[in-house]
């Protein structure tokens, strides 16, 4: 039998970032095929290329034996390909029924939406998750009122309602509980019985070994191998994910970590955090690892006063801090560098000077500013990072992503912050700029700063951190130091608990 889908040598670049350098995948009819790989290795991008959402830079796609080049999700859907979007493709304002059949509304002879039929069809689909979907899950409920697991169920049903021949489930079980996953697996099995092929992306090893026929493993935008589930085991798969480069390039420490902690965090709790306690010492780079969205960003944002805490205490240099808003954190000497520069850091269209000045102005409570008094300080701060720019008056947008990020770090050097919170700071930055950034972070730590560093890519954590806290569901699941600072341990700690 010829394969349903063949993707060969797919590449995709987003600006300077190469998301996919050699994505390949072959799926047989009626197969459940796992796509596995660390965060940021390109699974979602490959899925979107297949589903027509993202146009590849090069590569071959074949579907049922003929070459295809879907230019939009609409094209792919017409071919019989549907994608469960990791970030979901739901409209919060519309009801469950409207979302499931969006674009496929059954119409009456006069061309009106057939409300009765719509309701009937929706009920029939909801029936599959009856009893496990929780309260408030009905055809008429607006999606905005649903819990995360219920939204995932809606996205699953929406994909099924399109009656595709190939479905890609991109982390479709991330928010589901055990019983919901069972129902979902039953659906996968009945699809398989009908000859429908599924690509299943998940971080839960147990799930993958329970349901998948074959496993394709990706690493850094490249497909490394395809294994048959019955002939392999967990360790082999993890090793394939991690690769030969088990010990990535280290940015070695040049000075000792002080023994006394500078920052002591105890029992932090909030909507997304469950009693998180740790400390950070001067000269140390403390990593936050684990699967995406397990509370790492929430810790950093809460410490910066950008997200509310319900409980817990933060002590810096012996002083208890009250962190209600970022200004509190800034004045206490905390700095926050976000990977989401556009949202969290940049003043678009403003000069580099103004972008650097922002934090200093808050910290020093300046009301009036004589630029010339500050200029030298900012030039020194930016020079320390080896940042290339035309002049302090150039707009921030004239810089590349990597140089912008350096400017945002200069912002904090100018305030002399001693605790730096890095929230996936290298997102969308090219490799050379990343290496620069790592050297810089190491240098700052060597001079006595404490850095708390969350990265969505494991290799970054491993090459930079002195210690890694592995997060799971808003709590710290493991702490890696010394000998356990390896990709193998990190992957196992991150996946082990979830499995």
């Amino acid at each position, binding site marked *: 039998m010829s394969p349903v889908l063949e993707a060969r040598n797919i590449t995709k670049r987003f600006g300077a970032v190469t998301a996919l350098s050699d994505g390949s995948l072959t799926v047989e009819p009626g197969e459940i095929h796992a796509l596995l790989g660390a965060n940021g290795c390109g699974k979602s991008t490959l899925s979107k290329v297949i589903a027509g*959402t993202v146009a590849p830079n090069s590569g071959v796609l074949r579907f049922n034996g003929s070459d295809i080049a879907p230019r*939009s*999700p*609409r094209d792919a*859907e017409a071919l019989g390909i549907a*994608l469960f*979007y990791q970030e*979901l*493709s*739901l*409209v*919060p*304002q*519309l009801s469950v029924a*409207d979302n499931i059949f*969006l*674009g496929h*509304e059954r*119409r009456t002879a006069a*061309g*009106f*939406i057939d*409300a009765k039929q719509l309701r009937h069809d929706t009920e029939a689909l909801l029936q599959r998750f009856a009893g496990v979907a929780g309260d408030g899950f009905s055809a008429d409920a*607006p999606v905005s009122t649903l819990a995360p697991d219920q939204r995932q169920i809606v996205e699953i049903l*929406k994909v099924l309602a399109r009656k595709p021949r190939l479905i890609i489930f991109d982390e479709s079980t991330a928010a589901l509980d055990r019983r919901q996953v069972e129902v979902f697996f039953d659906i996968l099995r009945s699809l398989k019985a009908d000859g429908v092929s599924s690509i299943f992306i998940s971080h839960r090893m147990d799930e993958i070994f329970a349901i998948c026929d074959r496993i394709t493993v990706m690493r850094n935008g490249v497909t490394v191998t395809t294994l048959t589930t019955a002939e392999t085991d967990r360790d082999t798969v993890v090793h394939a994910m991690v690769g030969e480069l088990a010990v990535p390039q280290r940015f070695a420490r040049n000075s000792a970590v002080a023994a006394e902690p500078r920052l002591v965090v105890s029992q932090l709790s909030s909507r997304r955090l469950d009693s998180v306690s740790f400390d950070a010492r001067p000269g140390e780079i403390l990593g936050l690892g684990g699967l995406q969205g397990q509370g790492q960003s929430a810790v950093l944002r809460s410490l910066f006063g950008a997200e509310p805490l319900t409980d817990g205490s933060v002590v810096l240099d012996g002083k208890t801090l009250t962190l209600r808003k970022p200004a509190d954190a800034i004045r206490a000497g905390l700095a926050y560098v976000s990977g989401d520069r556009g949202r969290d850091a940049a003043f678009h269209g403003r000069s580099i000077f103004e972008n650097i000045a922002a934090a200093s102005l808050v910290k020093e409570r300046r009301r009036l500013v004589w630029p010339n008094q500050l200029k030298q300080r900012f030039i020194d701060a930016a020079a320390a990072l080896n940042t290339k720019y035309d002049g302090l008056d150039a707009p921030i947008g004239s810089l590349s992503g990597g140089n912008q990020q350096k400017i945002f770090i200069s912002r904090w050097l100018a305030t002399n912050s001693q605790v730096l919170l890095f929230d996936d700071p290298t997102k969308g930055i090219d490799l050379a700029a990343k290496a620069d950034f790592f050297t810089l972070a190491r240098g700052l730590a060597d001079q006595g700063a404490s850095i708390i560093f969350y990265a969505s890519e494991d290799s970054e954590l491993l090459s930079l951190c002195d210690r890694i806290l592995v997060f799971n569901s808003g709590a710290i699941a493991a702490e890696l130091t010394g000998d356990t600072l390896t990709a193998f341990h990190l992957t196992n700690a991150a996946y082990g608990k979830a499995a």
Partner: protein
Amino acid sequence: MTLLRNRLWLVTLTALIALFVVNWILQPNLVTPNVLKSNLTVFLPIVLVAIGQTYVVLGGDIDLSVGSVVALVNVVTVSVIAALGGGPGGVMLGMGAGLLTGALCGMVNGLLISGLRFQPIVTTFATGIIFGGLALLVLPTAGLPVPAEYWRTYGGYALGLPVVLWIFIGALIAIAIISRRAFFKHLSAAGGQRTAAFQTGLKVGQIRIMAYVLCGLFAAVAALCLTGETASGDPLMGRMLALSSISAVVLGGTALSGGSGSAFGSVLGALVLGMIGNVIFFAGLPFDYQTLIQGLITLLALAGGVLVSRR
């Protein structure tokens, strides 16, 4: 609070009833056929423009050019009627030309915004100036009366009911029809979560253009009504309509961010704005207060919407 979520129009309905009662007390002859009819005649244009504006806002966009569209449609209509000699056929053709003008204006806005990805606010602000300029080109000064049959029919009766009431009923039927079409859901999706709409395979570009065309069409009907009221051409007609229509949309509970709302709510909102004018007039307050109070009430509605959605 949960009851009020997405039901801001209930508050507006309550306000409308309250305003009506106050108006009735201040103006005891309010509930007589003639007074009601003349009220409706005054409110009809803003009701129609607000309906059209709703679709654009629902799609996550905005149309600041509707006021100028009304003026342009008005001068095109009177000019075509005059050029064709003012017979019944000429009137029909004139009205057709007006409707076409409105649809074309909407099409231009839609193409610029959804096709070329221009900013909706800035674009329609600019096209508004252009449409206004075109209106002045077509008819430099107010004048050019329409034939008496035009305004007599508009101010008259058909099948025992005022023509303005028929138009109002027709508008309600139109919005009921539109709200039951798949288009309406697709529009809400495009405005609510544009990426999701695209990923779902909707033709987001076409949908947004369609909303602008609808808006232009409703503005054109409003212009034809205003023409029936003023009985002549005026290139400066409808200047306040863009902002009032947005006020009405907000009062009617449609989110300015797009994705949720209803044209029916906007009808209520437009009526509330009109009734405020009435109450101010009959309470003996200077007319200058009208805009101020309408502005304050719109602000209140926006604040209410924020409060309701925050919990």
